[in-house]
């Protein structure tokens, strides 16, 4: 008997045989369904000029044939009735939603005229571009701003940069968890199953599980990665810093340390030792809600497992204690000897070949940095690895407060400020008041009614997009189908706008091919040649083997800040951070209590006894996108709150009930899911609810009170920000009640 196993996804031959028998066309493409470039590739099947379905590409390095729910629903997204079709110019009042069709040339002329006038009148810094999640057009948008003269790239404050900043200034780089070789992997505020189910994150998780490595998950509710783990640390949202600090207390008190490493490579161990004395596990339990014994056990387990690594996720960044949490975790990696050793957290290993960088770090002078409207990190630490950035919410706020000055033009490419940041009521006011507002997207978006100009851009399926790297291969991204409307790509938008503003010399005179040739110049190939190789071109480079314990090199990583040549001035791990201290910030990680927490304001807690936080990503959606895709909407049809049976019972709430969630700042209406999977003192909802799904008869929801937008519940006082990295807290206190 011969057993045949079915492999993941399709090979090119299989895809072509399907297309042949179905009388269709097949094209190799690149999945556009989640923001951060996951690099998953796919085969798209085309009938009568329309994409009918997609499959995972087995030859692709990232997904190796697998494709997630979102990627498999790409045809529905591409052909959605919500696609924008033409550039629009606002005719009615802000918010009315009255537009007239215009051409791309007219739209670009209007924008260029406006920016020219404003640059003369108010200075170039009056322009802010709101940053979406990490997308492939981030660099060109940053280059555009730099050449225009504005440092105001408005970054969300809750995605990657916050973690990276604290890591770079503590251990000199981003620690990559060596999951493949570890005996213990800790997923801390991370969701490996839903952020990249078809790629490395989920593959590493399941490989670790099959190898019987120990898995620990730190998060407030049970998700699929928790179901696979040996130990669940059910933490109160936003208290990760307290957990890490009390673990450090245990590790130092019990002397579970790598003394040689500390001696040779750590700055300020004695100060840290003294500092964490007050962070006892009993205090840790009071703040985090995790049992003292579990904190001790967890600390011992990590410190005494030689091959142990930590995967830090975005969950850590959604807190006013974000920088303290990451600095404490980085310190813990260092003092226990878990840095840059096999199976631990690796630093500074060689990456594959990269195209010529289009960023303009040369333009980030002190004078330029000084113009930031709301510097995301302190100005003394700008630029950071993604250039200069302003805090997203504060940038919008400046339109109303006019402090330190007023942003006059907002451009929102692929980001929805009414959903993506806090306090939609305030954002709405700002969008009504801002002098000029441009939105750019493939799909209708929440802010459209407020926009002066709406620009429809092409998906990666319908117009050629810039090539991508897949390890050593340059992969072209040709169009697969004809555009459904009057589109340009977002890259053409920046290139052609720059040309109109007189920045042509810096923008290849608006020519996309020349832009691509510039990026390719690193490899000595031309775009015309690449277009003839649909499977890509391999770049021959010597990528050395992984080396461990490269401390001398890593701890001397050069900084981007001109006045601070190194991230670590002592060329040692900054347990005690003299750079932060010299600028007036905490030299050691300090836990700050917030009013809106279970251990915060007692009066507030009487009215709002439950802690609320939100999930950033889910199996069906990417942030506030994709609610309109029927196959995905069927997976999660409505906004839902997870609530523990104890909390539900005293409120008379059952699964499926419609409930009102009220915080000191607003209220939303969602369905209840009563479950043991969550802490009894915590409730969780998913971020990003607004868009309806016409195919399933689902209407758009309110953006402010009465809708499903969790950002309506959070405050925006000074207290919600991390003092160092401007991370915004995703925690508040709420009451949940039945809603008739």
């Amino acid at each position, binding site marked *: 008997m011969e057993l045949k196993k079915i492999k993941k996804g*399709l090979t090119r031959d299989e895809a072509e045989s399907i297309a042949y028998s179905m009388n269709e066309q097949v094209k190799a493409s690149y999945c556009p369904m989640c923001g951060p470039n996951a690099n998953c590739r796919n085969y798209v099947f085309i009938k009568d000029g329309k994409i009918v379905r997609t499959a995972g590409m087995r030859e692709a390095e990232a997904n190796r044939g697998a494709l997630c729910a979102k990627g498999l629903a790409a045809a529905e997204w591409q052909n959605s009735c919500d696609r924008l079709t033409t550039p629009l110019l606002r005719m009615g009042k802000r918010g009315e939603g009255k537009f007239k069709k215009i051409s791309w040339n007219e739209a670009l002329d209007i924008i260029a005229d406006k920016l020219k006038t404003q640059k003369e009148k108010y200075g170039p810094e009056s322009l802010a571009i709101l940053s979406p999640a990490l997308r492939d057009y981030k660099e060109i948008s940053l280059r555009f701003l730099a050449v225009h003269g504005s440092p105001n790239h408005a970054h969300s404050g809750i995605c990657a940069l916050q973690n990276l900043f604290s890591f770079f200034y503590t251990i000199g780089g981003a620690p990559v968890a060596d999951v493949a070789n570890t005996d213990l992997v800790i997923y801390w505020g991370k969701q490996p199953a839903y952020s990249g189910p078809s790629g490395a994150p989920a593959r590493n998780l399941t490989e670790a599980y099959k190898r019987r490595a120990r898995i620990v998950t730190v998060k407030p509710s049970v998700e*699929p990665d928790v179901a696979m783990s040996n130990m669940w640390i059910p933490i109160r949202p936003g208290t990760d810093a307290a957990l890490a600090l009390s673990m450090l207390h245990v590790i130092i008190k019990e002397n579970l340390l790598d003394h040689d490493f500390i001696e040779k490579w750590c700055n300020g161990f004695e100060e840290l030792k003294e500092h964490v004395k007050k962070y006892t596990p009993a205090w840790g339990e009071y703040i985090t809600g995790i049992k003292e014994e579990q904190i001790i056990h967890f600390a011992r387990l990590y410190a005494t497992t030689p091959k142990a690594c930590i995967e830090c996720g975005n969950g850590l960044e959604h807190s006013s204690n974000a920088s303290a949490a990451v600095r404490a975790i980085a310190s813990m990696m260092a003092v226990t000897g878990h840095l840059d050793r096999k199976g631990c957290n690796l630093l500074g290993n060689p990456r594959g070949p990269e195209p010529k960088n289009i960023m303009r770090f040369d333009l980030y002078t002190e004078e330029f940095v000084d113009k930031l409207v709301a510097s995301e990190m302190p100005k003394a630490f700008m630029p950071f690895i993604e250039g200069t950035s302003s805090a997203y919410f504060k940038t919008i706020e400046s339109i109303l407060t006019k402090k330190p000055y007023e942003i006059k033009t907002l451009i929102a490419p692929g980001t929805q400020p009414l959903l993506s940041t806090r306090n939609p009521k305030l954002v709405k006011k700002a969008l009504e008041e801002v002098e000029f507002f441009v939105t750019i997207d493939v799909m209708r978006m929440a802010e459209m009614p407020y926009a002066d100009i709406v620009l429809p851009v092409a998906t990666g399926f319908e117009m050629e997009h810039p090539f991508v790297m897949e390890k050593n291969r340059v992969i072209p991204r040709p169009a697969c189908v004809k555009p459904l409307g009057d589109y340009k790509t977002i890259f053409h938008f920046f290139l052609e706008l720059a040309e109109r503003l007189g920045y042509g010399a810096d923008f290849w005179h608006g020519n996309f091919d020349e832009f691509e040739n510039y990026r390719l110049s690193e490899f000595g190939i031309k775009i015309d040649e690449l277009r003839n190789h649909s499977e890509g071109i391999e770049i021959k480079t010597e990528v050395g083997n992984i080396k461990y314990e490269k401390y001398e090199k890593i701890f001397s990583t050069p900084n981007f800040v001109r006045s601070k040549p190194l991230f670590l001035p002592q060329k040692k791990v900054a347990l005690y951070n003299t750079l932060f201290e010299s600028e007036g910030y905490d030299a050691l990680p300090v836990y700050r209590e917030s009013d809106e927490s279970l251990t915060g304001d007692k009066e507030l807690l009487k009215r709002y006894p439950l802690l609320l936080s939100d999930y950033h990503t889910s199996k069906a959606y990417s942030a506030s996108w994709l609610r309109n895709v029927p196959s995905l909407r069927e997976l999660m049809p409505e906004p839902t709150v997870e609530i523990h049976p104890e909390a539900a019972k005293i409120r008379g709430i059952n699964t499926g009930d419609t409930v009102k969630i009220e915080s000191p700042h607003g209220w939303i209406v969602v369905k209840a899911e009563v479950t043991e999977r969550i802490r009894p003192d915590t409730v969780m909802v998913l971020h990003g609810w607004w868009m309806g799904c016409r195919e399933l008869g689902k209407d758009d929801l309110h953006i402010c009170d009465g809708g499903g937008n969790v950002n309506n519940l959070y405050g925006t006082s000074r207290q919600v920000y991390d003092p160092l990295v401007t991370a915004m807290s995703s925690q508040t206190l709420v009451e949940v009640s039945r809603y008739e």
Partner: protein
Amino acid sequence: MSRKRFIFHAELCIACHACEVACKTWRNPENGIKYRRIESEESGRFPDVCVQYRTVGCLHCEKPLCMKACPVNAIKKINSGSVIVNEEKCIGCRKCLNACPWNIPCFGKNGKMRKCDMCEKIIPEAMKYPCVKACPTGAFQIVIDDDL
């Protein structure tokens, strides 16, 4: 004797719903109908709570109860192992749904029973089992005995 059967390693399922959406977008049942779905079952109390995920679709039973319950013999177990429905014969009485312990049979706008047929209706070999091909962890597989 069966030639092909689904196997499922529940411990490797990450509830990503790829199998569910792959079936949906490759087999195109109308909105509201699914041949495959992910379900979860929780047991224990916080914090000692255990969650099991599973992919749920027709199990293609050796002795299908739906087949037995069908008054017009519209349901058949064929040699390949698949349990299939003859839509011509089906009268939409839903007795199969009552008989099925797993709540599998679906009914579309035309009232006829529809469910997973292990891709019997799909002609190109490479196009079969999109659900299995989408599973990123190998939790959901199909075993095909080519010898028979």
